[in-house]
């Protein structure tokens, strides 16, 4: 094969310039601004501003609300990822086996993906409304004194439910394409060796899906960390007792509603580090178990 070699050195840089500028403008610049503001105490309008070193970080360390937000975010993202992934996998597995009118099933299952999180939240707030919500009535009729407005546990259950529902369709698409990518010959061979379909699934199909599962795990965690913002803002807004605040939502509340730019920037820097650590951990330890 002939190797293409550019004579001029700057042409390759020209090619990567668009990508590079996107990274610079949308990632590097805002993050460095966040780091800068995290060391600053400033009034809402930016009139007086002073450098306070680590004071903003100190405030966070002594804020009990911050820790309850960390705990909630971790549990929330673990549950949402678990439910959304398992439901997506289950549906994909079933849809893959369908012979008649599979196109219809697939299209219907993909639909919810097109709904914006804020709209999902609005719909949910109708369903779970205490004065005329169907889900609210149903749950109360089966004997659960369900009240997401004043009981934090109920509100958390509600959020996990709708956040998972929203994510199922994405997982479904990816799992379905992953399933279709598994060579037929392998499956046929396993059919000869093993009678139990359960066992076949867990020993042959699931390991072969590992790359897809790993990719989805990361996207699901990022989804529950950041994209659930719209859901929370249209349903609980962090209430009751401030126990449905993800870290991203707390940053918004403190920074935008509370006009505390320094404090919320410090929180975003911490969140940045946190997400970085999770990602490193995932690639270092979990990816080792994934075979492509």
């Amino acid at each position, binding site marked *: 094969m002939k190797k293409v070699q550019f004579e001029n050195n700057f042409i390759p840089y020209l090619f990567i310039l668009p990508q590079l500028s996107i990274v610079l403008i949308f990632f590097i610049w805002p993050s460095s601004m966040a780091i800068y503001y995290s060391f600053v105490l400033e009034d*809402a309008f930016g009139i*007086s501003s002073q450098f306070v070193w680590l004071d903003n970080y100190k*405030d966070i360390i002594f804020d009990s609300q911050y820790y309850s937000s960390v705990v909630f975010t971790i549990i929330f993202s673990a549950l949402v990822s678990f439910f959304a992934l398992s439901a997506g996998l289950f549906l994909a597995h079933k849809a893959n086996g369908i012979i008649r009118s599979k196109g219809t099933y697939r299209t219907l299952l993909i639909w919810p993906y097109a709904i914006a999180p804020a709209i999902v939240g609005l719909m949910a707030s109708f369903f779970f409304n205490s004065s005329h919500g169907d889900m609210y009535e149903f749950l109360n009729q089966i004997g659960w004194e369900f009240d997401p407005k*004043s009981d934090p546990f109920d509100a958390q259950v509600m959020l996990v439910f709708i956040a998972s529902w929203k994510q199922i369709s994405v997982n479904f698409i990816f799992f379905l394409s992953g399933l279709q990518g598994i060579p037929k010959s392998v499956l046929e061979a396993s059919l000869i060796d093993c009678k139990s379909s359960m066992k076949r699934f867990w020993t042959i199909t699931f390991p072969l899906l590992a790359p897809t599962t790993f990719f989805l795990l990361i996207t699901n965690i990022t989804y529950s960390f950041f994209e659930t913002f719209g859901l929370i803002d249209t349903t609980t807004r962090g209430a*009751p007792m*401030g126990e449905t605040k993800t870290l991203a939502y707390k940053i918004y509340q403190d920074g935008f509603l*509370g006009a*505390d730019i320094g404090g919320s920037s410090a929180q975003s820097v911490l969140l940045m580090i946190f997400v970085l650590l999770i990602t490193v951990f995932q690639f270092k330890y979990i990816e080792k178990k994934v075979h492509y």
Partner: protein
Amino acid sequence: MKLKGLLFIAYFAMAMNLSASTNITWWHAMGGRLGEVVNEMAKNFNDSQSEYKITPIYKGGYEDTMTAGIAAFRARKSPDIIQIFDAGAATMINAKGVVYPIADLFDNYGVKFNAKNYISGVRNFYADSKGRMIGTPFNASTPVMYYNKDIFKKVGIKNPPKTWEEFEKTAALLKKAGYIGLAQSHSPWIFAENFHSRHNIKLSDKNNGFDGLATKINYNNPAMVYHWDKLRSWATKGYYKYYGKGWADNQQAFYDQKVAMWLGSSGSFGGLKKGAKFEFGTTYLPYWSKFIDKGAQTFIGGAALFVFSGKSDEKYKGIAKFLQFLTSAKTQYFWHKETGYVPITNAAYDLAKKDGYYKVSPDAEIGIKQLSLPAQEWTKGYRLGNYVQIREVMTVEFENIINGKKSASEALKSIETKANKLLVKFAKTYK
């Protein structure tokens, strides 16, 4: 093709014509029925003259509007007039050079103005320490109690409770008949800030924050502990129900006739009148006779209009004119009648009286009467920084009390520690 070209020219001619008048933007937080009335008032002003054109823009709730205004100012794209709610007053007034004080604006652009014309509960809330008004009060309201007359009649209760001691007896009767006694729509505003005013209790150091940047809040006091302990016990007994921190959710329970009494804003009157399918009455906010012989006055809530600095002379002329129109007795009376917000000037109040409005609907006068009770030492309201965040802390801790996770004194102590931290931070910002 030709027609299109002609239309284009016509459109441009129209656009030119429109831009001949100075456009003034007004960001506000008045949704629903209130928004309609705002638009109507702007239209009345625009029709009354041709030099200036007011464009009201709805920006969402109070917090959203303030956030939008701050972001716009930082991006150097601030609107001309913005409506800011009570909890945001300290942020606006302390930010030097952000707003054009109303008193100066009126002086410089020849509008006759005397702070004494404003009713006493309204006068000081948006003024600096020397009493010069920085923002002009616009939609002034105060917490009052609404009660369902139909339910009261059915259960056989003659009068709504005047004190919280009486309330306990009333609520017990209602409970027997299957009704929840009470709901309320804003815990910090009604059960903390105005609770202090109604019982004449100091709210913070530095004269409730009016004499400087306060750093010590006074929410952990015997009356508050007593009241919140009671609320907790009422919640378990079914006398009181908390429908979450959302304003509308609590009001809805009153609409649905699950709850017999609801504490809301005097500004809710207009909406209730339109929406309620039952007869309701309005009365004063109850007080504990254990802590005060006769309930003191409450102070205003609601919001004021602030004018941003750095606009053209031409615009300020128009803004002064518009604010003069808005605070005129006639406009204020219209606003009062349509919405239930209290008239902010004595002239408007007199006009309403003269017109016989309170003879037809005496309930509409409760808010202003409560605001006009004799002033006492700690009834002037408060001016505290970072107060939006402090209210968030309060809401969380109050929910802890109602859910039985913390005792009232524990939660109030926690509010004080956290709030003081936020106050110190705010004071440091302006050093």
